[in-house]
């Protein structure tokens, strides 16, 4: 198991009039090499959960085990936090706001140098990461502040990719991007997953959840209300809940209900459905 969360509680503003329970007895396990979706409404605790995963927030109660790292509710006892953050990296929502260096390559190399790489080594890895997000040599020496929003986000994501974590957590990586931008980012994430990395993605886009994730967890008011395979989730939930079933999946379900031999477990995108329908027609 890559990640094991045991009875995690997180309370904001404890013992003040602003006290708010963000995570309420959350337990879940995420296997190594899986692609996991984290869904739920705004304010359901998704972001709080992912921030607990790399010790940006310290659990109020409960514990988290990330491979060889252990996070408990005693701040002093949590050692090796830096190594943990290299092992499990978090791409924040709207990461383009964290850029600050004079040039794109320096900004990407910044994280690497924090984790102890030498400058020339870091710049080299930064170039590699930038090429992998589709930004070529022309961009290396430019200021991040003169790029477009989509390009800036790619720079920011490259900054995390360059660190080469084993577990990558993305908080709404496609929010506010155009169709092409979000496709590029997602194919990059998919590539990382195929390279054997564990991916955890927070998102509101159910099409992305269906297309990319194998498993997902649904959070509601700080509690996990569902944990299991993604297709199973869309198969079992009713239409009126906070989660909207992707139209493609609905279509597949309707076809199946009408007697078509469709295996709902395998439907990830339109091509899968077309293939199944075609093989059915041939019969």
């Amino acid at each position, binding site marked *: 198991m890559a990640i094991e969360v045991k009875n995690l509680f997180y309370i904001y503003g404890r013992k*003040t009039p602003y006290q708010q329970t963000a995570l309420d007895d959350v337990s879940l396990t995420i296997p190594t090499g899986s692609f996991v979706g984290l869904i739920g409404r705004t304010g359901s605790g998704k972001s709080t959960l992912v921030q607990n995963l790399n010790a940006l927030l310290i659990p109020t109660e409960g514990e988290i085990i990330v491979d060889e790292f252990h996070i408990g509710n005693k701040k002093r006892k949590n050692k090796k936090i*830096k190594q943990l953050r290299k092992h499990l990296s978090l791409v*924040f929502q709207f990461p383009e706001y964290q850029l*600050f260096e004079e040039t794109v390559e320096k900004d990407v190399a910044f994280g690497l140098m*924090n*984790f102890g790489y030498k400058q020339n080594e870091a710049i080299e890895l930064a170039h590699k990461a930038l090429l992998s997000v589709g930004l070529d040599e022309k961009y290396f020496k430019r200021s991040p502040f003169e790029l477009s929003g989509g390009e800036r986000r790619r720079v920011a994501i490259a900054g*995390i990719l360059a660190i080469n974590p084993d577990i990558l957590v993305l908080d709404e990586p496609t929010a506010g991007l155009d169709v092409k931008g979000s496709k590029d980012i997602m194919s990059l994430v998919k590539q990382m997953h195929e390279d054997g990395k564990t991916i955890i993605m927070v998102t509101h886009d159910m099409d992305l959840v269906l297309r990319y994730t194998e498993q997902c967890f649904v959070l509601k008011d700080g509690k996990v209300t569902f944990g299991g395979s993604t297709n199973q989730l869309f198969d079992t939930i009713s239409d009126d809940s906070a989660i909207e079933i992707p139209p493609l999946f609905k279509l597949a379900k309707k076809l199946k209900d009408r007697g078509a031999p469709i295996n709902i477990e395998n439907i990830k995108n339109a091509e899968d459905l077309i293939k199944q329908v075609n093989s059915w027609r041939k019969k």
Partner: protein
Amino acid sequence: MNNVTFGRYSPLNTFTHKVDPRNKILILILLMVSIFLQFHVWSTTLLLSGVFLILLICLMLISKVNFLDLFKSLKSMWFLVIFLLVIYVFIPNPTYKFVCYRFNDHYAIYWDSFYQSGYIILRLILMISLTMVLTSTTKPMDLTYAFEWYMTPLKVIRFPVHEIAMTLSIALRFIPTLLDETDRIMKAQASRGVDFNRGGLFKRFKAVISLIIPLFVSAIQRSEELSDAMEARGYNPREKRTRYRKLTFSWRDIIALLFGLAIFGGILYLFIYDHNVEEIDLFMQIFGINVGF
């Protein structure tokens, strides 16, 4: 970042919360002036400061202000305290009389200097706590309304009262937003391996730079967006405006004002008496003990 709790408005419903903000500002000023009046006999000043301290504690209890917050903010004052103490103790003052330790014929340390610095610190604590009572029982927006109200007469000389109040209220409104933003950027940089609490001077400098630049960029962006949004909705500062919340004067305000005036009047009377008629030695009069000199 959420530990910046000093003087933050707490949404309760106490007597102090319900008092008109204009009135609260007036009372605050009256009390502060009374705190700053100094008497000839040091024991009198000290005794009156003690009275203020008790009053303040009552006020904080009524307003349900968190004592812990106050202590936390006072804890960060220790540098100032030491600084004041050093300045007062080591800089000679010809009015000092009581020698504590004599180095030589020309230079000595006086007990008076300890009393002076202690008194200043006590006054500072009183002022800070009073301000804290005001800010934690009054919404920032109400405070700016009150300031605007007090500045209204300046409109006659074409002083941009409304603009200043608007700027002030926007600045106050965006403090929590910027704090959230700071928190967010700190976390984002922390996941890139920045350690804000450890490391050498250069590393820390770099860490702070990685926080400040994005913060400035987003603040400037935000202000541009805000001014566009205001313009798009036809905002014109010179137009006459109506209020959603009207400030009203109630019986609570009368009680509070009478309380403030009574204290101010009393202290002022003692002060004038002390300076023009004869020196007051309260200890002597109340307890019959002569501690004054």
